[in-house]
């Protein structure tokens, strides 16, 4: 079971009033004393300090007969050195779908420098805001602050008006580049809308309060060119306010599935609208969420159609096949081998119709797997889309039904009492295999009952076995035969390497890793194109020896770990390995002619902890001129807490050291 970072629901928490305000609530409150601190207690090595970052969002009536979401951001940053200059470059991403849009205005930006004890202000010119049109839907507005030097304080403020009231970006209290002294978000929600709030990350909320007030709203709607209808009304508004103080910069560490699992933030989801608007509930339960998806044109509405447009393309694929599983396999292979994946879109919706995907033979992960679902159904099979969140996107929280928590779509297939999970978007993956980053906990089947699933890294075991047999041939030469079966994901990496560089290059690298004075002969790879199973490597090895009086041989022959996987001395958040593992190396070696064993490494068994979640075995013996050796590393779980880190690091240290030990052979006198 994975740890789920702190989750708080804020809708019902009690107001905790506090007098405290950011010293920078108003624009321009920078004085000479603001510059006084050169090194901040929160982080003496920081490149820049966010003194204050205040955001707000409110709903206002617009002229399209509906409401707009107006968000403001006001940020003050003290730049301490040159490496903090990036804070002075600002990008604001805006979206439009043709009719609805996001608009930036009221940009104000000032740089303050202390010169001879006086604060000198430089305002940014309006013309310094640049526009980059990424494509027809996406636009980036950019600006850079003027006159930035070491020690400058920058301040900027802007407003974004959005027609997408259901898409309020999460507020990030924590930054991945600078510590933040004050981060605040105020969300003013009128009584006719309700939003769910979800707080995530490790840092606690210092101020959490709500205030009720009344506000007036005006909604205008253009009827004809000359007439506009206008509605005025008063309604209650609740201002929700959250403040975090002294939030350290979030630092990245290796073996972390996603920084998004750790960054302190508040997420929002539109839950319902009510009087005086027409009452409507938005996705408040899992079943309602999946029901919505099944009716959504950009997701599942096509699944229940007859979809005869598929007929010409796919009927030949499974013609004269009776078994359901075999049919599914044929269709899966067809989609995987003939469609190009243009990448992950970061959301579960389609950007184009499935007909278009079929025609152009390309699509996003969601499009390709929804097409596969449709094909499987068309052929009469029980296939259903599953939505999940990949490791990069962070955990999807079970208590909070939000489609934005998911970024990936796969297919669940039920046939003859068996359940399969398919992903046809990756052309090196096999039937019933998923990419590693899909193993990230909670997922949902998009059906009427919204069945919950869990894809856990603990359910995956990478098993690797290596067998090396070495004998003296008739000429007294030392020769060996190597057979290796890597785990499934290790095999995936090999398939990718062979695809990129070719078999020949791949084995050249294997030879290099094996060590000097060794030649690899007649190499082969089994199951290279059979994507459902791991590959198997076979090759002969020939040792080039010179008849030295003493030979030192590492019985791992280049297969051992050479570097501790855990380099950092300390660890602040859990170690998340992508799977559990079980690696066994077996050697059976005839002592070379004319030599005898002088010394063998000592046997040992070690555990990571008392529970034995990680195990290392090193057994070696010599009997009648033959050395038998077996080395195994096994991890039963994939998640380790920071306090377990020193053990884990020490364990690997011991593994590397033990695996570098040598057998000593001496020439018989």
């Amino acid at each position, binding site marked *: 079971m994975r740890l789920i970072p702190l989750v708080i629901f804020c809708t019902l928490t009690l107001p905790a009033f506090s007098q405290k305000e950011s010293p920078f609530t108003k624009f321009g409150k920078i004085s000479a004393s603001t510059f006084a601190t050169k090194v901040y207690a929160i982080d003496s090595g920081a490149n820049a300090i966010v003194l204050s970052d205040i955001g707000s969002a409110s709903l206002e009536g617009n002229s399209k007969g509906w409401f707009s979401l107006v968000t403001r951001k006001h940020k003050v940053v003290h730049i301490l050195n040159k490496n903090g200059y990036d804070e002075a470059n600002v990008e604001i991403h805006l979206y439009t779908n043709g009719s609805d849009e996001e608009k930036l205005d009221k940009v104000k930006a000032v740089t303050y420098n202390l010169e001879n004890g006086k604060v000198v202000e430089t305002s940014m010119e309006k013309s310094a805001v640049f526009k980059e049109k990424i494509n027809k839907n996406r636009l980036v507005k950019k600006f850079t602050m*003027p006159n930035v030097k070491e020690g400058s304080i920058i301040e900027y403020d802007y407003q974004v008006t959005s027609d997408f009231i259901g898409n309020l970006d999460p507020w990030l209290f924590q930054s991945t580049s600078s510590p933040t002294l004050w981060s605040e978000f105020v969300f003013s929600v009128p009584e006719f809308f309700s939003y769910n709030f979800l707080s995530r990350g490790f840092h606690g909320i210092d101020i959490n309060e709500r205030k009720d007030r009344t506000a007036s709203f005006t909604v205008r709607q253009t009827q004809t060119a000359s007439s506009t209808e206008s509605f005025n009304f008063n309604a209650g508004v609740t201002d929700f306010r959250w403040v975090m103080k002294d939030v350290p910069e979030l630092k990245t560490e290796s073996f972390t599935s996603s920084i998004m699992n750790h960054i302190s933030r508040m997420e929002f989801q539109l839950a319902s609208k009510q009087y005086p608007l027409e009452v409507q509930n938005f996705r408040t339960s899992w079943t309602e969420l999946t029901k919505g998806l099944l009716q959504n044109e950009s997701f599942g509405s096509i699944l229940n159609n007859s979809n005869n447009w598929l007929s010409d393309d796919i009927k030949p694929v499974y013609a004269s096949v009776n078994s359901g599983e075999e049919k599914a396999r044929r269709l899966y292979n067809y989609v995987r081998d003939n469609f190009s994946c243009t990448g992950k879109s970061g959301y579960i919706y389609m950007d184009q119709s499935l007909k278009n995907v079929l025609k152009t033979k390309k699509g996003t992960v969601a499009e390709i797997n929804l097409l596969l679902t449709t094909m499987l159904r068309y052929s009469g099979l029980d296939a259903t889309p599953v939505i999940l969140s990949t490791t990069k996107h962070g955990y999807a929280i079970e208590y909070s039904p939000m489609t934005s928590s998911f970024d990936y779509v796969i297919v669940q297939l039920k046939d003859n009492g068996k359940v399969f999970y398919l992903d046809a978007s990756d052309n090196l993956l096999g039937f019933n295999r998923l990419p590693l980053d899909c193993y990230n906990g909670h997922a949902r089947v998009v059906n009427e009952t919204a069945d919950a699933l869990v894809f856990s890294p603990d359910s995956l075991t990478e098993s690797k076995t290596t067998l090396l047999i070495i004998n003296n041939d008739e000429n007294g030469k030392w020769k060996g035969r190597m057979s290796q079966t890597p785990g499934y994901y290790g095999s995936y990496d090999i398939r990718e390497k062979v695809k990129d560089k070719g078999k020949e290059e791949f084995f050249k690298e294997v030879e290099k890793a094996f060590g000097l004075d060794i030649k690899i002969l007649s190499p082969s790879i089994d199951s290279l194109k059979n994507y459902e199973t791991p590959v198997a490597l076979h090759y002969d090895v020939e040792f080039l020896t010179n008849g030295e009086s003493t030979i030192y041989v590492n019985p791992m022959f280049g297969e051992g770990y050479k570097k501790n996987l855990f380099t950092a001395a300390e660890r602040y958040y859990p170690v998340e390995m992508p799977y559990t593992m079980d690696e066994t190396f077996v050697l059976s070696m005839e002592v070379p002619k004319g030599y005898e064993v002088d010394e063998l490494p000592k046997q040992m068994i070690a555990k990571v902890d008392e529970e034995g979640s990680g195990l290392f075995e090193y057994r070696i013996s010599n009997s009648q001129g033959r050395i038998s050796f077996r080395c195994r590393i096994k991890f039963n779980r994939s998640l380790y807490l920071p306090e377990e880190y020193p053990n884990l690091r020490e364990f690997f240290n011991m593994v590397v050291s033990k695996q570098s030990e040598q057998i000593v052979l001496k020439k018989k006198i």
Partner: protein
Amino acid sequence: MRILIVWSLLFCVTALKAADPKYPVSAIPEILKKDADVVKRMEEISFQIISTGETILHKKYALTILNENGDEYAGISEYYDKLITITSMEGTLYDASGKVLKRTKNKDISDLSAVNGNNLIDDSRMKSHHFYYREYPYTVEYEVEQKFSNTLFFPNWYPQEDEKYAVEQSSYTIICPADYSIRFRAFNYKGEPEVTMEKGKKKMRWNITSVPAIKLPFASPSWKEMTTVVYFAPSEFEIQGYKGNMSSWKDFGKFQASLNAGRDVLPANISETVNRLTAGVSDTREKIRILYNFLQKNTRYISIQLGIGGWQPFPATDVATKGYGDCKGLTNYMYSLLKAAGIKSNYTLVYAGSNKDVLIEDFPSNRFNHVILCVPLAKDSVWLECTSQTLPAGYMSDFTGNRKALMITEEGGVVVRTPQYGIKENTEIRAIKAKLDEDGNLNMSVKASYGGTEQDDVSSLINALSKEKVQKVLQKELELSTYDIQSFKYEETKEVLPKVDEQLEILVSKYATISGKRLFIMPNILNRGGVVLNDQKDRAFDYVYDNPFRQEDTYEIDLPEGYELESAPSEINLKSKFGTYTSSVKLVGHKITYKRVREHFAGRYAAKEGVALAEFFESVYRSDRSKMVFVKKTSNP
């Protein structure tokens, strides 16, 4: 109605034509398939110079994609901006037999931003298309036409665009007014172009056929030495109302000078600051240092490239008030600061990066991507990289050093050479004092000193990262299994030849392997080099090394009591034209002294020397990783 009929007739004709198989894969000669991911089946490039202000480029080519690795070439991406328009773009997809599978439609072509990641903003956009076909082999054919409203660049001809890329046929035709002088420089092209006159226009055509794929070898010479490349450049040219002539460096320099003219005026307060900062300083070098320091403190690099702004610097006033600029703006600003202090300097165009031989001295053309400043003094010059916040005045890192550049003077352009650093300057000297304990753990103090280009990496590491992040990098990068950086310290000497001194305290866990009664230890703790190169026998191209260096390592390791030596590597002393290498170990009492000196020479070596070269690098590799073995003395024999 009549129109409709005509249209549909036309349609039939095209449809019929399309039915003829084109580019069947079976027609590709075997020799072109060897080592290839892609085969260019045909290419016709036609470049027409209408006037000095307008040109048209028409390209038609077909590529057969043999396998998945060729997919990256299968699409098309063409850039456009204020000075380039794409007038048409069409593509056709064929299967292996040459049957048409698909043709592009306008809506299939995407129109995307192409702002370079290094720029805050520029005006480049691109139109691109890809068929995303997956049944190999297949063939794509594209036809594209672009109009240029400037003549600063002429497209070059690279028939073979990359490694693993064979060419069946490719041609380039340039068409210009009869009196226009076309300038070109051909590499690996046999013979001369075919020249014809047509309707009062001059036409020149280059054509090649059957070029097998190349596998890019390591330490390779530049691309133009390995395959056919023809560079083109204008004589008279024009861009956004500015006119010039590129026939000589002198004239091209004059053009750049005209773009810069009048942009060196400083605001009054900055002129005053210059006077104040340099008052009482008599030494010119010191003045340069002071003003360069002022530049580094008060500006930062922000790149904005719009229209002519890609070639013309921002006025010095803009940089002064905004506090930022790109290489052109910052260099021109520094030029203006120096001018205000009465020091003459020269704006200098350069091609920065790892490719050092881009400028062809006797073929003037606009192939630059960066600007630096040269301050000529009586004996030598002081070079300034004005986009750097940290480099010392006078030092050119490996990014801009050791290459030819175009200096802009009052008389026009002059080709000069940026500073070159040799084996005496690029040094790495390291001493380690270490103690090994009974369990094989090694406690060591490292003192190292890096000079010249050998300090480039470490200097950017300590300048670009906070102390905490430097520690993280150190904790990860060393070639040791498990270790803790207990303390580290860096000191920079910012001089014309910069130096970084490093002090590290490291505890290496289980550095030595203790196995039964034996102890195995690699005396070379921190500087293992060399490389194992197989198969140098069939090498076709020269070896080129351009960054010489010298390394000197002296390590002292105290062993625990009670061990005696069983085996040790013998002393090695190599001298070759590729470099020199010596390493030796000495044991006195229980102290190991390891000495290693390695000199790596810059040079160019013929392909046939590959075996000797590989042998040298492999010897270094082996020697750097050799072990000493000790046996514990038994107390009761």
